[in-house]
């Protein structure tokens, strides 16, 4: 109970960082009492505001869903609460999870808490889209924050805040109750303060097996949990894909990546430099597939049964279009237009079908690499977190530069984790390294991350 009260206290103290969209302190207290009655130790949890909860509103940081309250809880929310999780609040994000800055949502930006802020008009970007969840963990408010990861939305903010972000194998965590962005890429994900904790929470949320409510959910096989355990880095086969030292990578990020590879070698790992040549088309492939799914997923917001409804009432289409134009931000609208373009009769073959074929090439290439190596080690982002002013001055183009490193894991469906490895030279901001493993090797991935974290 004390842990829950101190979490609430901290949440209030950090209000100016825009971490939460809804605070659910009373709910957390009730959940804590219920846990204690069942003999379970309660722990504070933050839930990204794209997971449905039936007590607090679920807004996706959009005016469209400002007043939306769902009739159900997401499966993983149910499971974490049943095991002692107490929801402190729903966390801020990029509107409908689109972005890696958590800056442009309807309820204001999330501001990083890794350093003292110097000005109220500028701040260190927390990454995104699970920016609020990452800062909630970094600031010590909660032990676990739920995020979602479609192209890097958990690993990117984990790296920027110096914490751990695990995107499990696609399907391992149920998507039931996660507002969809790109259905075949979306992975509910975990933000915590160690790789061991990431695994512990993953185990809690998968202990009841697959979720019948999500037809794409898969079991993490029991035998793979134990048989794939790794107790030493000796003999571990590590792959370094050359394409991940691209022209956007900073000196800071490269040096830490290089240092980690040196440590792996010292510990007896067998390091091989490999090539994944289709990587350079990966971002284009991802952007087409994502836009097409966004266009159809966003079509449900018609403002009739729920959602922001405009005063304009002349005709149905007019009401739809005006409500949507008023309440969806420029980033969301941009992806809807692009998606509908790629889905047009005359362009579908040219773009969407093409992208889906390139996705197979990327997948085959990466899965083939896992015949040769156990783990891929890459940077998580181009460098440390930028400032808001830097993003604004480059029209947010840096967001794409960072996506380059993370979205391939979503296209392929493999597990990936970002671990904190050091600080940038000039500003002392956190730098992360990403580890990726073959599908369903989530346990081995967390083991390697844990061992590595213990020696750096």
């Amino acid at each position, binding site marked *: 109970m004390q842990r829950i009260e101190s979490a609430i206290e901290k949440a209030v103290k950090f209000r100016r960082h825009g971490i939460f969209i809804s605070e659910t302190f009373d709910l957390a207290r009730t959940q804590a009492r219920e846990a204690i009655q069942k003999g379970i130790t309660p722990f504070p949890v933050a839930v990204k505001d794209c997971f449905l909860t039936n007590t607090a509103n679920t807004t996706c940081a959009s005016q469209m869903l400002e007043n939306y309250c769902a009739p159900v809880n997401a499966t993983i929310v149910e499971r974490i609460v049943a095991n002692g999780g107490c929801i402190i609040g729903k966390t801020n994000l990029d509107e409908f999870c689109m972005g890696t800055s958590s800056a442009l949502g309807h309820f204001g930006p999330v501001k990083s808490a890794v350093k003292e802020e110097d000005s109220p008009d500028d701040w260190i970007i927390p990454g995104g889209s699970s920016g609020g969840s990452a800062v909630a963990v970094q600031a010590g408010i909660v032990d676990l924050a739920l995020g979602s990861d479609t192209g890097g939305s958990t690993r990117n903010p984990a790296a920027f805040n110096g914490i751990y972000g695990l995107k499990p194998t696609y399907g391992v965590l149920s998507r039931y109750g996660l507002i969809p962005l790109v259905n075949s890429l979306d992975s509910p994900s975990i933000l915590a303060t160690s790789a061991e904790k990431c695994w512990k929470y993953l185990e809690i949320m998968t202990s009841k097996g697959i979720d019948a409510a999500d037809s794409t959910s898969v079991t993490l096989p029991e035998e793979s949990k134990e048989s794939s355990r790794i107790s030493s880095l000796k003999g571990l086969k590590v792959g*370094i894909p050359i394409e991940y030292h691209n022209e*956007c990578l900073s000196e800071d990020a490269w040096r830490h990546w290089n240092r980690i590879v040196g440590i792996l070698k010292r510990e007896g790992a067998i390091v091989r430099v490999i090539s994944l040549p289709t990587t350079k088309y990966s971002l284009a492939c991802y*952007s087409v597939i994502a836009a097409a799914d966004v266009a159809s997923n966003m079509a449900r917001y018609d403002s009739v049964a729920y959602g922001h409804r405009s005063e304009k009432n002349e005709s149905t289409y007019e009401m739809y279009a005006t409500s949507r134009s008023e309440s969806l931000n420029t980033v969301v609208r941009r992806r809807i237009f692009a998606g509908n373009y790629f889905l047009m009769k005359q362009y579908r073959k040219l773009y969407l079908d093409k992208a889906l074929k390139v996705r197979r090439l990327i997948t085959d290439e990466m899965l083939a690499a896992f015949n040769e190596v156990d783990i891929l080690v890459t940077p998580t982002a181009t460098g440390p977190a930028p400032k808001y002013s830097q993003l604004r001055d480059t029209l947010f183009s840096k967001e794409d530069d960072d996506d380059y490193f993370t979205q391939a894991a979503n296209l392929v469906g493999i597990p990936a984790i970002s671990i904190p490895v050091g600080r940038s030279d000039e500003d002392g901001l956190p730098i992360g390294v990403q580890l990726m493993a073959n599908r369903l090797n989530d346990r081995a991935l967390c083991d390697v991350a844990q061992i590595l974290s213990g020696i750096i």
Partner: protein
Amino acid sequence: MNRFFKIVLTSTRRASTNGSGKRKTPFEGDKVHIPDEPYNSKVRFFICFKKKLKHGIQIDESLLSEMPPIDAKLISHLERLSLVRFDSEQAVANLRNSIRMAKRLELVDVEDVEPMHTVWESQECPTFDDVEEEPLPIDKVFRNAAVRFDDFFVTPPGNVPLESNERFDLNVINKWDTIGKPVAPEAKTIRLAEGRRK
């Protein structure tokens, strides 16, 4: 050429601040364990760089099909499909940039490759048993609707096509790279949601 020049300039400027685009040096005492020369992932930059140095061109930009000009018909068609309106020339130019990014895919050979729609392709899709579920109580069904009439959702009159006026300067849109004046979106003020429904 102008655009290429600009891109080269941008990456030079970047290189001077954080070392990106340059050969890297390890921390003192560390050896070089990973490639220290950057690999060029940006197709466009790669081409112009190669052309400039008169090296063998590995990817020829002329292989990319030409960017189709954006006309009023396409704008209005997309607005009707999307049920969203473009709010400025910049918004339409952004669409152009998204298309340009997608065009890179033209350079990948995908002959005999099957599209990949999902991760677990051989997984059997389970179906629900045909059992009636407990329906939502009527008040829960309607609690998020802005307008309700008895037990009906309400919409304005239908069968009226969405009006979509010509209101943009197409020249600005199609020459956005040279004459456009992009404006960055601004962050809003931090606040909590009111959460009036409990």
